């Protein structure tokens, strides 16, 4: 009696499953198509692109566009390639991410484990900082950077990004530490550990997932930022996003699409790598605060 009906159910199950997979594959292809186009065209000579078939694999493989984009292409007025700007971005992103993550962790620690009168108001105001549009703070920021003598420099960009990221990093760490048992902090207090000892020895070792989330989030945002980069940089502090724009918009000679594609991939590569390396922790970390245990 039950055997045949179960059989039908299984057959239906297989059919539904096949349908789901087919749909998923279609969407995956659809989303991966732009990346595919960029990769294949960055490996073709310019002539092949001009023939008009964007989707075809290269007939003649070449890495010349990549080398050109990296070190010789015309960026604005000088033929330097993206290399110096890539370095600018690294010099900007690494300290900015480190500073905003460390300060966010300390804020989260204080806001959950060393509560004071009005702590929720402070947190609310920091949260609000996440929602202030970039454009509003452009002119005040420029003024302050000028006063500090940091205008048009990499440290200036670091300062702006670190401060702007603080709202988010504080939010992440506060919500994570909120679920962290307060009794552990009390036990450490009785054991005689100081404010920073408790942070370093008790909280930080358990903060892996949320650190990964914060670092990915901050790295991606700061690396990809264009507005601050174009507003607050001078010739020798331009980040890669702005340089990429200059590369594509350089109006001398022919448009070297293959070089542009290679440059765009180069500019996107670090965020891709960060995500691929630690992406699975990202989801795990985002979930960690949500469900207890």
């Amino acid at each position, binding site marked *: 009696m039950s055997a045949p009906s179960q059989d039908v159910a299984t057959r239906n199950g297989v059919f539904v499953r096949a349908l789901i997979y087919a749909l998923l594959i279609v969407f995956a292809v659809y989303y991966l198509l732009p990346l595919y186009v960029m990769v294949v065209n960055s490996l073709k000579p310019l002539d092949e692109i001009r023939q008009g078939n964007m989707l075809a694999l290269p007939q003649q493989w070449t890495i010349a566009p990549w080398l050109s984009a990296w070190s010789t292409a015309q960026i604005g007025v000088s033929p330097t390639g993206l290399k110096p700007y890539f370095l600018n971005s690294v010099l900007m992103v690494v300290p900015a991410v480190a500073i905003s993550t460390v300060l966010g962790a300390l804020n989260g620690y204080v806001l959950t484990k060393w509560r004071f009168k009005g702590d929720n108001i402070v947190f609310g105001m920091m949260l609000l900082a996440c929602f202030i549009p970039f454009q509003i703070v452009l002119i005040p920021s420029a003024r302050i950077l000028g006063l500090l003598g940091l205008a048009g420099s990499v440290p200036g960009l670091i300062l702006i990004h670190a401060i702007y990221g603080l709202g988010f990093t504080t939010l992440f760490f506060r919500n994570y530490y909120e679920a962290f*048992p307060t*009794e*552990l902090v*009390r*036990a*450490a*207090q*009785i*054991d*005689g*550990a100081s404010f920073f*000892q408790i942070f370093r*020895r*008790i909280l930080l*070792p*358990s903060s892996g997932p949320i650190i990964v989330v914060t670092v990915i989030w901050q790295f991606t945002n700061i690396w990809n930022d264009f507005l601050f980069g174009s507003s607050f940089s001078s010739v020798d502090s331009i980040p890669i996003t702005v340089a990429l724009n200059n590369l594509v918009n350089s109006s001398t000679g022919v448009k070297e699409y293959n070089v542009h594609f290679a440059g765009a991939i180069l500019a996107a590569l670090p965020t891709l790598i960060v995500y691929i390396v630690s992406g699975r922790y990202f989801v795990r970390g985002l979930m960690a605060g949500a469900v207890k245990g």
Partner: protein
Amino acid sequence: MSFLEIDNLEKSFGTTRILKGVTLGIEEGGFLVLVGPSGCGKSTLLNTIAGLEQITSGEIRIAGKRVNELHPSKRDIAMVFQSYALYPNMTVSENIGFGMEIRGIAKPERDKAIAEVAQLLQIGHLLDRKPSQLSGGQRQRVAMGRALVRKPQVFLFDEPLSNLDAKLRIDMRTEIKRLHQRMKTTIVYVTHDQIEAMTLATKIAVLKDGVLQQFGTPAEIYNNPVNMFVADFMGSPAMNLVPATIGQSGSEATVELARAGAAPVSLALNGASDALSAYRGKEVVFGIRPEALTDPDGADRNAKHLVTTDCHIEVVEPAGSDTFAVTNLGGKGVVARLRADARIKPGATAPLTFNLTKAVFFDPATQERIA
């Protein structure tokens, strides 16, 4: 003078008063249990002793020294938390040694102290494990080890057994008592379980709504509760508290207990105290513990004043070691504790013996003890 003294302690959060003028003390080597229903302020009181909560006014003294302003680590106390609070990223031995490490004690000395404690608690084979690899009972032991290794003047326990299953809880209870007998260190212990309080304590403090209700030895608390709250809270099954009137039969004072569909039970008091005589003709609450209300053969032969009367038995609950019978007096179910093999049937009438030497009386309005 007591070893640990708490003097007129007040604690408020904003305008909410959590502890309202608590005063008590425990001698050196004593075992003080703070007991009360949830929200009575007992854990807050413990946290103020530990220094984890600031107090609003009053004074706490350990060995005659005021500790109000001292940091928790300077008070010479150790605490075992309800959740055990083991550092999840450290091994058992690192957990136990963390305090010593912070105080800058050299590694060989630390290892020696850890080994001693591990042997005492039989956790030597667990020293390299992380807390997540331990069972509840093992975590409990490690938490106690972390406290023991400090050799403090006062141990503080915050409901340490409430996360264990019933059987393990009883084992660990015995173990804590054994440990106390061996170490002779002063202990303050918070629980909501009145049986834990009775079995462990040398002194019990019963709290309700931040007010100390009664402070005394377990026997005092059990036999001479000062009010109806303490009488009802301590003991399992709880004390029977029955509305009654003080009457008179000849020159003798009696207590009258109403019964549904029958004449009231009248028990001669064999000479009432002055306090109780003042209530003649008035309503009182008659309190009698189940073990003082028995079948005639099971009654305490040494009791000075026994009265036997027939009661209608409504429910019989055999519990193995005893049989509990419920009868109706004064409009309430009254539990009697009979011998296991007492011949008794529900729905029938059976003689029950009241041990009136053990009976207590309360004023129904103030809930305070009369006699």
